[in-house]
């Protein structure tokens, strides 16, 4: 496949130039010319007012690289654990994995490393048909090498059609190694996954360009189709106490790692910073004014059972540590409720939180861009609003 320009039709209007996400079109002698940075997204074809750009179907040498794609059937998810406990994102992967497996008429497999039998049973109750469990204590802490080795081995034996993992620090670190080794495609940080009705290929939707555009990615000729999935986007599966499944204990011959975790440190100050898994985030920006302001936000977060986030401005001021930062250069979050306090809403911040279910914006400035993404907006002083809100929540929770 390639994209070509009909030179006789091209008027040199440059509409395609500015719409190309990859900067792959240049003008040569008054006509559009597509260079090597083309990603074949076909945006230019859709915007050309003259219909001068078209897709050239070359005689395909892209025959399926894998002799029989149909040998690859099931859906496999990688279930993360933290200190032996199955992480929330695993249940979300089981939710989406179950739906995809049912649509394909396939089984849902899960791989769990460094946890016990009870974790595997939990995965079955949440939707897995088969769990590959390796309880070896050496796998409790995350190291890329052994995780990649064990997962690659299971994939090679089971030949799943789809492999999903959480787009967490763990998943985004070692899953690329697995994809490189398996010579297959990997799509990062997906927010939607569907099966194409005709081809049965996996349609993987993800944000790019700082959340400015969405792209649908395919992996048509290679298997498995691999994706990391953004936490807190997919619904958890259905829990069924009586669901049964198979647990297969893995006993790897030797577990080797070139990297070694020698210590795990939870962030100080006692405030949880697990923004990815939080259901409620109370975030502060420059308007919080300092550590005092963040104290108020912390009290509200505690009352709500949530965690504290921050804009880059607040982190740069030194009011709170970087691990709390939400936005393009921080974390991308999507809690049920995001309360933005004194955050003006620069686009770099918005891309990190705008997919939250409910956004509450509290800001003195009614023109602040944060209100454009807010579900509920309050124009006012956070030093008045937040203590009142904390009090109300406490009353409600107390009763």
């Amino acid at each position, binding site marked *: 496949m390639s994209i070509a320009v009909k030179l006789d039709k091209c008027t040199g209007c440059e509409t395609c130039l500015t719409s190309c996400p990859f900067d792959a079109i240049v003008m040569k002698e008054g006509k559009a010319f597509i*260079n090597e940075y083309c990603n074949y997204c076909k*945006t230019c074809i859709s915007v050309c007012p003259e219909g001068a750009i078209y897709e050239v179907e070359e005689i395909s040498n892209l025959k399926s690289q894998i002799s029989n794609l149909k040998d690859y059937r099931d859906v496999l998810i990688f279930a993360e654990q933290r200190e032996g406990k199955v992480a929330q994102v695993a249940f979300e992967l089981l939710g989406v994995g179950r739906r995809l497996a049912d649509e394909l008429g396939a089984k849902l497999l899960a791989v769990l490393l460094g946890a016990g039998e009870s974790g595997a049973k939990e995965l079955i109750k949440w939707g897995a048909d088969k769990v590959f469990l390796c309880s070896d204590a050496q796998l409790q802490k995350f190291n890329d090498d052994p995780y990649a080795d064990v997962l690659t081995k299971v994939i090679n034996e089971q030949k799943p059609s789809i492999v999903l993992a959480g787009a967490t620090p763990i998943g985004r670190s070692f899953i*690329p190694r697995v994809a490189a080794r398996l010579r297959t495609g990997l799509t990062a940080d997906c927010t939607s996954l569907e099966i194409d009705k005709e081809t049965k290929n996996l349609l993987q939707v993800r944000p790019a360009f700082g959340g400015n555009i969405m792209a649908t*990615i395919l992996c048509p000729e290679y298997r498995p189709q691999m994706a990391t999935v953004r936490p807190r986007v997919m619904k958890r599966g259905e829990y069924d106490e009586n669901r049964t499944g198979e647990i297969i204990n893995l006993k790897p011959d030797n577990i080797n790692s070139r990297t070694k975790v020698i210590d*795990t440190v939870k962030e100080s100050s006692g405030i949880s910073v697990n923004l990815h898994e939080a259901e409620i985030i109370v975030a502060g920006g420059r308007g919080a004014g300092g550590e005092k302001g963040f104290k108020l936000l912390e009290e509200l977060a505690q009352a709500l059972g949530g965690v504290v986030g921050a804009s880059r401005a607040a982190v740069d001021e030194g009011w709170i540590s970087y691990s709390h930062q939400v936005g393009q250069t921080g974390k991308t979050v999507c809690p049920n409720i995001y309360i933005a306090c004194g955050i003006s809403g620069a686009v770099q911040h918005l891309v990190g939180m705008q997919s939250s279910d409910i*956004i509450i914006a509290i800001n003195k400035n009614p023109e602040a861009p944060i209100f454009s993404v807010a*579900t509920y907006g309050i124009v006012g002083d956070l030093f008045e609003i937040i203590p009142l809100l904390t009090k109300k*929540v406490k009353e409600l929770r107390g009763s």
Partner: protein
Amino acid sequence: MNIIVCIKQVPDTSEIKINPETNTLMREGVPSIINPFDLHALEAGLQIKERVGGKVIVLTMGPPQAETALREAISMGADEAALLSDRAFAGSDTWATSYTLAQAIRKLGADIIFCGKQAIDGDTAQVGPETAEFLGIPHISYIRKIEEIKDGYIRVQRLMDEGYDVVESSTPVLLTVVKELNQPRMPSLKGKMAAKKAGIKKMGKAEIEADENNIGLKGSPTRVKNIFAPQVKAERKMLAGSPEEQVNLLMEELRKVKCI
């Protein structure tokens, strides 16, 4: 010590707007910059060179105009620069990009390779780890601090969801860095002079002895099917009244949607 820093020239995504009629990106006037995370990677490389000696080579894969990014890196203190550019690299996804970078790194030779944690245009965070796999060396992602470095050994802090891990590794190793690691320096006058004169090493598919089947679109397992604008959020509700009334209204709304 040979230090390679991989950088990418990207459009400044915070400056990008969407054309509401065609739902496409408007790139006009959007400046090309060095990917912000890569500046932290470069700073890390320069600091290690200052501590233990050696040289810093910046490497980029991109169109000929990416040379600007390399010269900027030299002005900050990089010793050498290499540009991986070839029409045959067209349409590379993360798999093919990583393969291509790894082939080039093999030619250049490295004890430590630094990458930014992700590029702000693609946001995949995959090229670093995949490149390490192709090179057959370990990698550690999301480095926030380098605690110790000596011959054949490195100990770093890796940012995790709830804090950080202290991780040690043998070298050669590939590290991807977060911005907490350091504060990138500004270009120096001497550096700017050097940048003007510096020779840039050009590498194409022949120089890196790439396998045709592994590069460009042909080597890429993934395809972009289509690109579209994200859905705009449903309409908002502004809450009016005194602070007390606003808070009451909010509590009511949240109760209605069963969030509290």
